[in-house]
């Protein structure tokens, strides 16, 4: 009798233990399957959300060219269909990479997309669309986090290989890890003349030309007119091959601490403020007045660059209270490049560039939160066009509602 009872007890305990073990095992399999399903759903959501951003222009249609806060978020160019994005809507996205810049003379903080010295795009926070606003308009607030990166497909790298007699500039055109052989390169070479008495405005000369890359995607250009390594210049090159187009730029300046900083002031009025760099970053005395001379170039349909003169294109700016900033109005909503030559003295000066429309200098956009450290990030990509410049749009999406990754 006792033996039978013990047998029952042992068997029951073993049975219960086995049941619990198997419940755990089955549960793990089911949890893994549910998790996979959620990940699948997240990937679908990522693809849908990316299309939602890229295939609708938002409300109102031209919010990129105005100062209003959109009531619907979308980046498509309202004048086109399919995956063509508005260069101005992209310009209004608050950059999540560059450090914000505070300009005391307007009392505003600016979203900063600066691609090295002399290539500025500073949009006031009051006009930039924040990540939280976009998330709210997209209906993902509190449920999904995302990061949208829009990067140019074609990279045009420009370097100076010989500073004078003649100036030699190497242009290298590559795609995503593959050189663009036999690509046509259209360039604009602007040299700054700092001659004239004290306070004179800088003059400039623009030269246009075309060249082709070799099988390695490179081309070497020579400018015999540059006989002095103190000559300031800006070089802008557009490269295109079989529908792919990219932009590159390079400047040489002699005044590297005191220079011009352009700030977008009003997108609707197309107004750009021209500030002295010491108001943004003070390097110490002595500070000098800068005289400037601005112009605007745009890319025409035949891939050549054309200059559009600006009204009130010259002026003087200085650091500190009592010295107001300058301003220029860009005459068009056609994307182009604002070129500002500046002069500190007869031997020191330079040139800075600002894209009018994100694509004209192929600036990249990074918008949203950083996905690093997030539990599970789904990504999807599309090839897009921004004013005929080829870009790749990548969306990284993750859930904010939380679920454990196990199994």
């Amino acid at each position, binding site marked *: 009798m006792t*033996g039978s009872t013990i*047998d*029952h007890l*042992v*068997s*029951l305990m*073993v*049975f219960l233990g*086995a*049941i619990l073990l*198997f419940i755990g*095992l*089955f549960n793990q*399999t089911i949890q*893994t*399957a549910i998790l*996979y399903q959620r*990940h*699948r759903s*997240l*990937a679908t959501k990522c*693809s849908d959300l990316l*299309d939602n951003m890229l295939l609708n222009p938002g409300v*109102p*249609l*031209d919010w990129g060219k105005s100062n209003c806060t959109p009531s619907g978020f979308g980046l498509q160019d*309202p*004048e086109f*269909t*399919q*995956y063509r994005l508005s260069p101005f809507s992209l310009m209004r996205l608050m950059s999540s990479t560059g450090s914000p810049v505070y300009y005391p003379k307007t009392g505003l903080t600016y979203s900063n997309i600066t691609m090295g010295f002399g290539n500025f795009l500073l949009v006031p926070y009051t006009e930039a669309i924040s990540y939280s606003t976009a998330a709210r308009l997209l209906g993902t607030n509190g449920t999904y986090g995302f990061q949208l990166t829009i990067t140019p*497909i*074609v990279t045009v790298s420009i370097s100076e290989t010989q500073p004078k007699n003649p100036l030699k500039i190497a242009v290298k055109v*590559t*795609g*995503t*890890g*593959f*050189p*663009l*052989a*036999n690509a046509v390169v259209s360039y604009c070479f602007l040299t700054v003349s700092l001659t004239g008495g004290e306070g004179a405005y800088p003059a400039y000369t623009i030269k246009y030309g075309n060249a082709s890359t070799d099988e390695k995607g490179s081309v070497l250009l020579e400018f015999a007119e540059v006989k002095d390594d103190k000559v300031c210049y800006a070089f802008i090159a557009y490269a295109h*091959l*079989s*529908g*792919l*187009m990219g932009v590159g730029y390079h400047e040489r300046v002699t005044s590297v601490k005191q220079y011009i900083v352009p700030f977008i002031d009003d997108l609707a009025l197309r107004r750009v403020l021209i500030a002295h760099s010491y108001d943004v970053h003070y390097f110490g005395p002595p500070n000098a007045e800068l005289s400037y001379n601005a112009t605007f170039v745009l890319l025409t349909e035949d891939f050549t660059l054309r200059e559009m003169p600006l009204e009130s294109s010259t002026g003087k700016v200085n650091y500190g209270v009592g010295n107001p900033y300058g301003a220029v109005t860009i005459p068009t909503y056609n994307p182009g490049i604002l070129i500002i030559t500046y002069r500190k003295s007869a031997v020191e000066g330079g040139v800075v560039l600002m894209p009018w429309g994100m694509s004209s200098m192929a600036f990249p956009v990074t918008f949203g939160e950083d996905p690093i450290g997030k539990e*599970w990030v*789904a*990504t*999807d*990509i*599309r*090839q*897009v*066009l921004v004013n*005929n410049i*080829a870009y*790749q749009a990548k969306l990284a999406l993750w859930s904010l509602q939380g679920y454990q990754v196990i199994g």
Partner: protein
Amino acid sequence: MMRTIEVFLVIIIITAAFIISSFFAVLPQPRQVSPLNLRRLALTTLQTLDVNYDLSGTAFKSPNDPAWGGLQIALSACLPPNIVYNLTVYEVSSSGSQLYLSLQSISNAQSLGVSSDASSYLVASSNVTFSVVPEKIGERTGGGTLYILNCSDANGWWITGYTGQSLAGDLYKLLSPYFKTTIMLQNTAQLAKILNGTSIQGETLRNATVINTVGEAVPIPSGYYASSGVGYDATHSSYARYCYTLGTKVRTFNWTWVSIVGYPLYYVSNTGLFTGQNDQNTYGIYGMKCVGPAGLNAFLDGLDNKGYGDWRWDNGWKYDNDWITGSPGVVYLSSEALYYCNYYGIYPSPYQTSTRALPDSILTTYHLPQSSVTYIFNKVNNWIPGAVYRHIAAGDNKITGSLFALGLTRTPDIRLTGLGLLCAFKPRLYRSEYTASGTSRLVILQLGQVGGV
């Protein structure tokens, strides 16, 4: 002991069940769980390569042409390094048993891996002209005559930078393909003729469209139509009477009267009739008289078969509610107009400035029912910046006259006039066969992913 053995037997059975179920419950690979949308990537790659019709051009070149090399370089350059591709171009054949014939293929890998996806893209030859034949307005409903006021004896206002004649020429080019008959009225005498109900060259007078190209002014024929009680109101020294007569004619003949810019019917113009030194619009344009807001009010009275004249003295003679337009500022094309921009290939700027928008109160006052209005611009509060208003008399169900008023500020964009009329009449476009033999080629881009799991 038996119970323990039984339990072990149960454990063996459950273990077997777990193993068997785990064998069948195969979880997908991570790549399948969170896949890259290769189909969309392929489509957008093809669209990118065809941005300036480069892909279309290459697809029609011979297989030995260097353009194929350029295309391969561009394709390799624009796709991520872990993506392999195969691009194939097919001839679209309308004869024979095979619809698609493979012509050329470029690839950067032997195979596309375990999973791949593809998109297709139809390209057209640049040597082909695709013809579009528009349906003629009036073919189904009767009428279909377009009168364009090209009166050499009338001056314009608020058409700065243009003349009535240059606008008339442009309108002719834009709209004549859509109408059965288009007639340029060369002078005010011809205008008087159609107001009398006499056709110019045997065209159908009823259900016609009349475009006034001289902006805020309207040509007035001398003689009968400028006479007292018909065109001139001697009591109030106003040519609003002429506008009233125009309204009645629009109703009688069921015309669509088009005002291309500004305040409709604000001046009357005839350089032969108004020759006095004060016969100018106060801005130095001679040969015209100011009617003021009374012109539009009188026109609408005439259109609605109301009696002429509800004048009152208020620091000058005022007609009805006097000035009725508003200034809503920047206005946007309606969704219907945007749709027809694409349909007809007319692309004016989608936003304009309106300073002479009509109030929506006219819809009820003058029997222009809301349901029959075609909005060209979105309403802004109570203001209608641009619309085609159709008059339907009380107790009636048929249209008796229409007014198309674009209350925009100068200068006029006649593409808006064209777009508005096409939105109102909606003539169909009959396009040529797109997949005609030899004119189209099908490009298929197949993408696969390599590396990873």
